[in-house]
């Protein structure tokens, strides 16, 4: 028997020759009109519907500043929710006082959650976790079944 590497090399050479001899495939005649049509459609879009990189400088700066402010507010809100509403007062964040009602709601929700966790028997929690895991496994099984029944035959059909 001829060695595997020799067969592989010979096959590689043979197929390289065949594949490189293939001419380019002709692009569909509709391609050019599709490209120009899409360019015209994109050019007609208002600036706020284009990608961020194409926005004018002014709105880009405002947007970045807004994002930074929002991130800061979220961070401060999170910290104050963890530390407590009173400590927020202590750090003198008087300017954020309009956030206090929301923080009170968040703190109350946290307290309620903690209370529920204390009230629910541990067995129920374990059972809930087990049911969650079972549902996850079922979802995985359904995904695998859907792949085998729907996606793979469709893929084979496209070939």
């Amino acid at each position: 028997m001829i060695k595997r590497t020799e067969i592989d090399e010979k096959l590689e050479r043979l197929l390289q020759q065949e594949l490189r001899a293939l001419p380019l495939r002709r692009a569909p005649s509709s391609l050019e009109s599709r490209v120009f049509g899409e360019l015209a459609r994109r050019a007609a879009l208002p600036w706020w519907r284009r990608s961020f990189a194409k926005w004018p400088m002014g709105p880009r700066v405002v947007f970045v500043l807004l994002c930074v402010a929002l991130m800061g507010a979220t961070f401060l809100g999170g910290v104050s929710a963890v530390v407590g509403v009173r400590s927020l007062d202590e750090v003198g964040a008087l300017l954020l006082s309009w956030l206090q009602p929301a923080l009170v709601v968040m703190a109350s929700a946290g307290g309620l959650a903690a209370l529920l966790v204390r009230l629910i028997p541990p067995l129920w929690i374990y059972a809930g976790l087990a049911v969650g895991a079972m549902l996850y496994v079922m979802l995985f099984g359904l995904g695998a079944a859907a792949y085998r029944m729907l996606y793979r035959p469709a893929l084979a059909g496209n070939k």
Partner: protein
Amino acid sequence: MRAYQDMVFSTAARLAGNDAQAEDISQEVFIRAYEHFSDLRGSGTAGGWLKTVTTNLALNYLNRYRKRWRLFSEMRSAAALDDEDCAEIEWQVPDTLLADLGAEQRCALVESALLCLPDHQRLPLVMYHFEDLSYQEIAIKLNVSLPKVKTDIRRARAALFAKLESSSAARDALDENPT
């Protein structure tokens, strides 16, 4: 655009294995080229730029639509793949292939055989033979291991050869006994 559209479409079609997807990819490539028109105009590397962008977009396109199924499609263990790969090739490789066919028939046969290959074999094969990428570069682009690239390309060659051989044999049989 007219100078490069066949090259872009061919590259996309061979990678994607589907003409409709290839047209979508080609459209996006030329839109990007339009956005970089000032850089590309008069540049001698426009063809290479277009080919690279086409390859990357085709890979992104395939990944985007197939990532959700990857978990299920790649469930077979690496050990099982290695075992399969250990099987020796029993057939002989001739010196020429499809020599009795005309150029047009030959091209059509090779193109259709190429499109019949599964994605995980066709992609590395096309990248190796048409894009001149090394095994290592293909592994990086496809985000798979180097041994997997080598195995997939080897299997792709074997499958392509088998398809071409069987098509050729079927054609011979048809020529000998047309009824």
